[in-house]
């Protein structure tokens, strides 16, 4: 059994071999797991906001879907993954509180998911599975070697994508 590396909010981590990456309590944020199935190299990004170009203060690259995914991919490639073989699984983007759409940041979960998909499509990385939206938080654990993406939520059985 390898070690499980924790990924914080607005953060990304990569690993290989038996190791896994995890992020706890995803709310409206999105967890993006990418791996190269051949070499078993992969990683997980925990993004908070959809678009770095919408915000002036955007130096924290893992915070945004667009720059976060770019950085995650380059990290995986640096660790020995092949750019062309990468596949993705995503989770999160929940709406934790039900308000009307007055404030943009309220439906940020949905926008995060859309931005994530758009970026992955643009980079031609197929999305194999997703568990997004709804109204509850998720904890995810990703094992790049097998591609197993475990999802835990309060009061629900664990899912494996």
């Amino acid at each position: 059994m390898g070690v499980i590396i924790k990924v914080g909010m607005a953060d990304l981590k990569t690993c290989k071999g038996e190791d896994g990456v995890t992020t706890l309590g995803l709310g409206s944020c999105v967890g993006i797991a990418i791996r190269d199935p051949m070499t078993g190299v992969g990683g997980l990004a925990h993004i908070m906001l959809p678009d770095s170009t919408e915000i002036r203060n955007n130096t924290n690259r893992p915070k945004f879907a667009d720059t976060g995914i770019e950085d995650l991919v380059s990290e995986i490639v640096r660790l020995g993954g092949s750019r062309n073989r990468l596949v993705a699984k995503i989770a999160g983007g929940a709406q934790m509180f039900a308000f009307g759409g007055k404030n943009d940041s309220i439906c940020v979960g949905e926008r995060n998911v859309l931005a994530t998909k758009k970026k992955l499509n643009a980079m031609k990385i197929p999305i194999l599975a997703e568990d997004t939206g709804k109204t509850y938080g998720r904890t995810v654990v990703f094992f790049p070697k097998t591609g197993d993406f475990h999802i835990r939520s309060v009061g629900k059985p664990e899912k494996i994508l």
Partner: protein
Amino acid sequence: MKDLNMDQLSNQYFDVLKELGNIGAGNATTALAQLINCKVDMSVPQVKLLDFQELGDVVGGDEQIMVGIYFQVSGDIEGSMMFILSQYAAAHLVNKLMCGMLGIEEEVKDEYEFGEMECSAIKEVGNIITGAYLNALSGLTNLKIVPSIPQLGIDMAGALLSVPAVEFGILGDKILFIETQFSDDVELDGYFIMIPEMESYAKILESLGVM
């Protein structure tokens, strides 16, 4: 001031926001004491500017199940506000509020499943506490501050906190966090998170004459 950045908040501004948090939390505690009709002590609130990564740890772990009550704030200042407390504290308060009618046993308070009645009671507690908090702020700054109806979420701390974190995320890489410990016969942890929008910070600071 248009470019206020949470990461480079000057000491003076930080102290002012801290003091506002202090006064708000003090008022909220008084309201809580009246509500449950017993003496409530409050520790000196801790005001912290936290990195996103540290958030979950402060409230006892990202996966800790918490009760969050979330408000949107409008009027002279715009933004939102969250009051978050442990499941234990919520069950304890509800039990007190309803004079023990629910008969929530001490042992199950940690993982008590809240029904419709309880949820409604928690929202009301949140409403009153937050109302008192905002009233203090409003009185001090002479600004009109109106909270929306409360929204309740019971979930992992990380997931609940991601909502205010995202709003702070637009401003910078830190979050302003006010921790208050209430205690009557037991210790109850409560946390306030205030998220004024960027222009509202300026308004608050201006109205207090520090800008």
